[in-house]
């Protein structure tokens, strides 16, 4: 065992006194040199948070053990709650039963209750592989809210101004890594419950990634929790799922987005036409179980 | 003279009401009914007679009065204190057996010309029950001046007296009065031969209504709702085609009338189903809220519900009456029927063939009135129909 070195200069009582003295000195400088609790001089330039927020993909929300935790939360609390509040009726669930490739799910948006209802309609297997595009400026302006929605609903921040290419890139990344993407192409909740004009982003995403879009429509969510109310009230809701739309050869993103809008409109009207709901043969074949070796 | 008297007494009423009609409270010394030595009633006129009650029944309306359930509607039409007892068989001073028709109409009160109701023969509806030579009172047994069956002596106008044929025992004769009520109800409403008729309740009045309907207006099907086995047996022997228990009444009536039944599922506040269809005519003979509520649901649309048993202030859902366009009508007392015969005469004619002895008893002495009232209050459970006071001398 080596004895402590006796010769090191700045140890012991003298070093302590010196550093304490230094601390006091620093305090004095700061205390006098800056404006603490006093008005900021007018000639100073406007204050700014010059360091940008650390960008987050919220990738943690799509990793274990968060996925398992979310599965338990949804299965144990969110879905039973949805069931009790809305007694959701689901039509066309065969279109999402046996999805082989990631898809974009496009729905109308009237209420915060839409997302749980849509997730309910998707069924356990698809829900587990679906991320929800949530307005970056609404949900992610506050840390805690953003954290909670990501945890519960598997959301990711989506800038709705349609601008930054980065957001679309991130969405594409998610699609490419095998996640289904639930988007609300209207961009915001409808005040009246009526359908609004779709934004073209959904078309970009689909054409760029060559994925199908499944139109969905929720009826009744507006009664459960319209815009501006924070407490849900029980009411019956219906979710209709339409036939997947494929991007046609050479189809522009804008015209494809229009096609999606039309399909959601038809679902809203309750149309039974084969373009939207498909013939029974299409639906039957969509639900064919994956071939496995027995 | 020994008699049971009933007086108006607010604290006693409050006590009885608060006890919910418990028999031990309702017959206690603090209650409304007392056994006392009172002045015998005086003869108001020369055409009045002294009647010595032999047997005197305890009617449902008496029980209602004693337990504080009677409607205050009757209050101004009664003179206090009175001696209850209006269904009785008595003897005159000369020893002949009579029944007393208790209604105190114009003829009894010596009013001439009579009111329009009495002139029509509907003495039960007499408009002069407050006038004349005796005190206010609808009937003997509710009038201070006449005495009543629950005392040793009462006075009756000669128009009230009917001689009892030898074929009738005292007990059977006592039931002439309720039988007359039943006959009046049956004749007043007149069931058609193709009707289905429902009699709710198989107490004394219910059973006699069954007999009266069967005799005077035999319908296609006569259904009686009876709670207790002895009531069911009596109802069957008095002419009911079908006897059903209260719990199964909707099911059985539905079947009998080929109605459709609509149940509400998950309504905890109203368990009663709705019948689309139902009985043409319902005689309500229990006078209770639940029986009334059932009656208005069991009658078909446009049907008729007849209240025979005395109701009080009961809570009944009026919606079925309104929606089914029901005729709800009362049937009170007796008089002269449409065929020109007096109801009591009809009753005395019919009574011997009904073997009404079975319905009378057990008998109690006036002194044992507490036991008697208590027995009468649970007569169904104790397999009795009409409990009565017996004042016949031991000879």
């Amino acid at each position, binding site marked *: 065992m080596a004895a402590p070195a006796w010769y090191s200069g700045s140890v012991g009582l003298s070093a302590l006194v010196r550093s304490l003295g230094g601390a006091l000195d620093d305090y004095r400088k700061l205390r006098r040199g800056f404006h603490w609790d006093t008005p900021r001089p007018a000639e100073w330039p406007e204050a700014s948070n010059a360091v940008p927020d650390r960008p987050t993909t919220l990738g943690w929300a799509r990793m274990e053990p968060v996925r398992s935790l979310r599965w338990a939360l949804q299965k144990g609390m969110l879905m039973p709650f949805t069931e009790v509040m809305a007694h959701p009726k689901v039509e066309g*669930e065969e279109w999402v039963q046996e999805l082989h490739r990631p898809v974009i799910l496009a729905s109308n948006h009237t209420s915060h209750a839409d997302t749980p209802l849509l997730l309910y309609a998707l069924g356990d297997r698809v829900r587990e592989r679906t991320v929800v595009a949530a307005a970056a400026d609404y949900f992610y302006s506050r840390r805690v809210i953003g954290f909670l929605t990501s945890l519960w609903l598997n959301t990711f921040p989506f800038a709705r101004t349609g601008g930054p290419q980065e957001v679309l890139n991130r969405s594409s990344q998610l699609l490419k890594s095998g996640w289904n993407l639930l988007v609300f192409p209207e961009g915001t909740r409808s005040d009246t419950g009526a359908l609004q004009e779709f934004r073209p982003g959904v078309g970009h995403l689909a054409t760029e990634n060559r994925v199908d879009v499944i139109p969905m429509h929720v009826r009744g969510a507006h009664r459960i929790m319209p815009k501006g109310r924070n407490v849900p009230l029980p009411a019956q809701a219906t979710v209709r799922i339409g036939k997947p739309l494929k991007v046609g050869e050479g189809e522009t993103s804008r015209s494809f987005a229009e096609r999606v809008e039309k399909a959601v409109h038809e679902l809203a009207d309750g149309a039974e036409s084969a373009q939207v709901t498909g013939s*029974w*043969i299409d639906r*039957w074949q969509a639900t064919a179980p994956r071939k496995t070796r027995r | 003279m020994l008699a049971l008297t009933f007086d108006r007494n607010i604290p006693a009423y409050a006590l009885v009401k608060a006890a919910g009609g418990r028999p031990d409270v309702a017959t206690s010394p603090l209650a409304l009914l007392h056994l006392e030595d009172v002045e015998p009633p005086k003869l108001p006129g020369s055409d009045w007679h002294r009647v010595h009650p032999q047997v005197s029944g305890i009617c449902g309306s008496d029980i209602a009065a004693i337990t504080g359930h009677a409607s205050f509607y009757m209050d101004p039409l009664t003179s206090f204190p009175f001696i209850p007892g209006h269904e009785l068989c008595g003897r005159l001073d000369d020893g002949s057996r009579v029944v007393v028709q208790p209604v105190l109409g114009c003829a009894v009160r010596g009013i001439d010309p009579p009111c329009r109701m009495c002139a029509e023969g509907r003495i039960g509806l007499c408009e002069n029950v407050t006038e004349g030579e005796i005190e206010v009172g609808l009937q003997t047994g509710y009038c201070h001046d006449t005495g009543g069956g629950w005392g040793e002596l009462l006075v009756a106008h000669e128009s009230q007296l009917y001689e009892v044929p030898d074929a009738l025992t005292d007990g059977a004769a006592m039931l002439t009065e309720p039988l007359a009520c039943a006959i009046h109800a049956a004749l007043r409403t007149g069931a058609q031969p193709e009707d289905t008729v429902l009699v709710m309740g198989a107490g004394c009045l219910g059973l006699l209504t069954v007999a009266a309907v069967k005799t005077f207006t035999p319908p296609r099907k006569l259904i009686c709702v009876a709670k207790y086995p002895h009531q069911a047996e009596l109802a069957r022997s008095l002419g009911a085609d079908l006897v059903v228990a209260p719990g*199964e009444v909707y*099911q*059985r009536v*539905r*079947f009998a009338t*080929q109605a459709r039944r609509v149940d509400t599922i998950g309504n905890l506040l109203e368990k009663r189903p709705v019948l689309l269809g139902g009985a043409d005519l319902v005689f309500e003979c229990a006078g209770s809220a639940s029986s009334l509520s059932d009656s208005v649901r069991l009658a078909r649309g446009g049907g008729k519900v007849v209240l025979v048993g005395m109701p009080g202030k009961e809570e009944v859902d009026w919606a079925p009456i309104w929606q089914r366009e029901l005729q709800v009508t009362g049937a009170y007392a007796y008089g002269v029927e449409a065929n020109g015969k007096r109801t009591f005469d009809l009753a005395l004619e019919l009574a011997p063939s009904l073997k009404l002895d079975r319905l009378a008893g057990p008998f109690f002495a006036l002194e044992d009135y507490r036991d008697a009232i208590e027995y009468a209050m649970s007569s169904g459970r104790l397999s009795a129909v009409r409990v009565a006071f017996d004042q016949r001398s031991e000879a």
Partner: protein
Amino acid sequence: MRPGAVVEVDRNTPPTLFHYGEGFRLERLPLGSRIIYPPDPMDPIGHPERAIRRALTKPIEDDPLKDLLRPGMKLTIAFDDLSLPLPPMASPDVRQLVIEEVVDMAAHAGIEDIQLIAAIGLHRKMTADEIRHIVGDRVFTAFWPDRLYNHDAEDPADNVQIGKTSNGEEVWLNRRALESDLVVYVNLTLVPMDGGQKSMSTGLGCYRSIKEHHTVHTLLNSNSYMHPPDSALHHSCIRQGQIIEDAVRVFHIETSLNNHAFPAIANFLQKRETDWTTSDQAAFYALKQATDLAPPDLKRTMFHSMLAPYGMTSVQAGQVDKVHDKTLEAVRSQMLVPVEGQTDVVTMGIPYLGPYNPNSILNPVLVVCLGLGYLFNLYKNKPVVREGGVVIMSHPTRYEFHSVHHPSYIDFYDEVLADTTDSAEIEKRYEKRFAEDPWYRQMYQQSYAYHGVHPFYAWYWAAHALAYLGDVIVVGGERSTVHRLGFKAATTLEDAFEMAEQTVGRYPSVSHLRTPPLLLAEVE
């Protein structure tokens, strides 16, 4: 597979299990009595899907199904309802496997107009969940409720008369089936009574055609209806079926099951008492105590949630009669037990479930139907009990009815049986009234009630037994109910034997039907 057996009770025989509604009794039978045990379950087909595909491509006396399907045609698939099998089969039901195969072929052929009809006849309509259990999730989500629905025998627009048989029996059929270019019937045969021409004529018929053979007269002449050649009921059904075959193109698919009727938890019900292991005894003991203590509703929920691990033993398709012959062969090879001679007394335990009360209550009328109808008639040649003999059943026979499923049963019990228990008398005086009661009709059409006339058929089912037997004794039954049914009530089995001796004489010979699992006694 071990065949069924008749075992004589000796000193070493353990006590015998009696089913007793939602419960059991363990009884000692007199020495020398015989116990008739069903055969063990046959080995099921290893690859049911493959067998089904083979049956569809190589039908009996018919073209392969593929060749019958062409685009633009009207295709109707009809299937048996939840009265089969008992208890309900654990998923996947064989009907699901068959229907999925047929639908797959139809999808492949591009047939747009396809409908699936549950051939319920006069049974109650099945709830969505019950249908989902039979046809499976995939078929259900694809077709419910517009193209997959219950037959409605009371909708005048939905039922068409197609003719009369040579005996003057009316033949009616579901309109959609009649208008189809092809009807594929998917059947499941559990006992020899089911299937064949009876499937279409009863399942898709209405009261006017079913009443032609569901009469006291035919049932008295069906000895027994578990053996079609001796059954007037089946002769009539075949006559009707031939008229139907002339009117519609029918492709019949029949399946048969083994008798593995109880899940692992109730293994002891499947075994003979002599084979019970300690764990079987423990399971019995636990279940017995539980059922003795539990309230009826809880017991019922428990028992009705039991699903049977049935295995498919055969599947064949093609022309109705030819197919049915093969099916019956398979069913018989599973059920048949040779029995020597009749006995004076037959004892049987009545289980919690009959064909008419899945997810419901076995009410007193259905107890009679199950005991003296189905179990008594599980014979070939002649009954196990001699003419004038006594049947002793064990069942609690409480006054219990399911008010949604069995509204007409309640009135049948309260109004009809209170008057008379004589089948012929009942038929004459009451049947028409019940069949035409508007409320029953409404409950059948819009709710989940058996048809108004159904309790009559349940009662007629026992007509042959009632005419044949000297007496019927119910052990452990509620006295008032048993008397209403016209039987005698005994508290213990010993008392019942004492009472039986008054009818059949001292020291009677006794057989016990140890069933379910079901057996078919071939009495020499």
